[in-house]
């Protein structure tokens, strides 16, 4: 593939019925998935919002007009309403709320990414192992999962944060620990339907080890539904992080975390509505974005939903 080949040629190369290499086959498959995804308009809106979040988080220093932590003159710049100087107004410590919301995107993205990176593999591993082997291992692993599922998520996260001490890192660990059980359940249910499939029997007859079967054959088939579930849960994760922040157990002041900002603005909710509303709108927008993205992904990735 040369760089100056016309775009039409690239598209044909990707959609070739006779790919000539592993890379072309994989890219072609990804391209077909992408084409199917672009047909879903709401999914694209969700993807746009999530990409905006990533963009804002990366370039927060450039975008934010003021320092998110150090405020201005406390005599003249406190609790100003939204204006051209301060797009979202200022808070009670004379800090620009717009800058704080922009920098808060970093914390939110960190929470979301770390929780996804920690919780998804745990859930997948527990679920596929449990479903594939069955028997007493299944019973033990699923009862542990049940115990975690039986607690309300925010309460369990609260208990962990109370034990580990407040702070954004501990909030992330707490949320990750409480969010893997649904993924384990989902992966186990998928594995149960897959493990008796003929293609699993076939690879077993090739002499593959259980680890190879679980990792190479079962997990790829569970992955799409788990990815969809994780994306849809992102909204809940953001809200839990915001809830912990609101209760003072997540990010600590002066970190610009959206939940903590709402908690700070609560005192002036009636007179200075923008202090709590602006970070709330940010949480709403990002949660909505992840939900739309998850819905779009489900339409593309879930073979059962395919027309």
């Amino acid at each position, binding site marked *: 593939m040369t760089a100056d080949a016309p775009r039409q040629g690239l598209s044909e190369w990707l959609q070739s*019925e006779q790919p000539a290499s592993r890379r072309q086959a994989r890219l072609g498959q990804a391209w077909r998935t992408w084409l199917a995804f672009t047909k879903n308009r709401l999914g694209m809106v969700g993807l746009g919002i999530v990409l905006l979040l990533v963009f804002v988080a990366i370039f927060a220093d450039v975008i934010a007009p003021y320092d998110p932590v150090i405020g201005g003159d406390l005599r003249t710049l406190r609790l100003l309403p939204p204006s051209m100087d301060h797009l979202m107004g200022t808070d009670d410590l004379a800090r620009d709320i717009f800058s704080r919301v922009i920098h808060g995107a970093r914390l939110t993205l960190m929470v979301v990414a770390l929780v996804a990176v920690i919780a998804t593999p745990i859930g997948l591993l527990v679920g596929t192992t449990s479903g594939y082997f069955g028997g007493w291992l299944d019973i033990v692993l699923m009862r542990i999962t049940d115990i975690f599922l039986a607690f309300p998520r925010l309460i369990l996260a609260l208990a962990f944060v109370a034990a580990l001490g407040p702070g954004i890192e501990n909030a992330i660990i707490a949320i990750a620990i409480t969010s893997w059980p649904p993924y384990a359940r989902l992966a186990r249910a998928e594995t149960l339907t897959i493990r008796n499939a003929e*293609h699993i*029997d*076939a690879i077993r007859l090739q002499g593959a080890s259980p680890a190879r079967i679980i990792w190479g054959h079962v997990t790829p088939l569970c992955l799409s539904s788990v990815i969809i579930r994780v994306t849809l849960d992102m909204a809940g994760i953001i809200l839990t992080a915001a809830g912990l922040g609101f209760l003072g157990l997540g990010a600590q002041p002066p970190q610009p975390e959206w939940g903590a900002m709402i908690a700070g603005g609560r005192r002036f909710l009636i007179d200075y509505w923008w202090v709590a509303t602006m970070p709330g709108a940010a949480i709403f927008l990002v949660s909505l974005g992840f939900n739309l993205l998850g819905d779009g992904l489900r339409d593309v990735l879930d073979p059962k939903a395919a027309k």
Partner: protein
Amino acid sequence: MALIEIEDLEVTFGSGGRVVQALRNVSLSVCEEESFGIVGESGSGKSTVLRALCGLAPVTGGRMRIAGKAVPSPRDPEFYRRVQMVFQDPYASLHPRHTIDRVLSEPLAIHGFDRREQRVEQALDEVGLGAGFRFRYPHQLSGGQRQRVAIARALILEPSVILLDEPTSALDASIQAEVLNLLDRLRAERGLTYVLVSHDLAVVSHMCDRLVVMQSGEVVEHLTREALKDHVTKNDYTSNLLTASEGFTRDPAPQR
């Protein structure tokens, strides 16, 4: 000398209250480079014989020997190199997210074969699929092409025994003939031993020299191809099966 010997094989599914005995006292022997058929209606346990031999069904009694040696349990890599299986449904027996290349390379990787690239290409050639199929996904292939890939996968470890579990029943008639001819050719070229399970007597009489008829988990009759063609049977069930295989007639089947 018999290559595969099965004596008094018993398979029981379930435990506690609900027990289903799928096989009772099944005995048969398959000679080297022979094509051996197992026929019977649905639920007669014919596929279970193959699955028990491979270790996919719970064996509760009896002995299985291959080349005079008892089949180890769990099966060892040597067993898998000697015995391979082709499944009934080509739509279910290939992993939907793996390319044909991966399907064929993985057994080679598991057993540490060398020259993998050439072996994969050679296997595709042998089953009549060109190298152009190598990096396709199963959903880009037709049923017959998929079954050819499944046959290539079974052959790639160079086994001496191939277990065929209704290899053509999911394919339409013209493709059936192609796949059966392919299997015939491969057996002649490589000196393979086949154990073919089918409910289709035409397929079995085309492919097999000897066969057994099974009914509700038991072997009811041993037959040769000539006996099958001439309808020389001792057993009522077998003659009913033969009559039924001729399709619909206005005369009712003889009742016993």
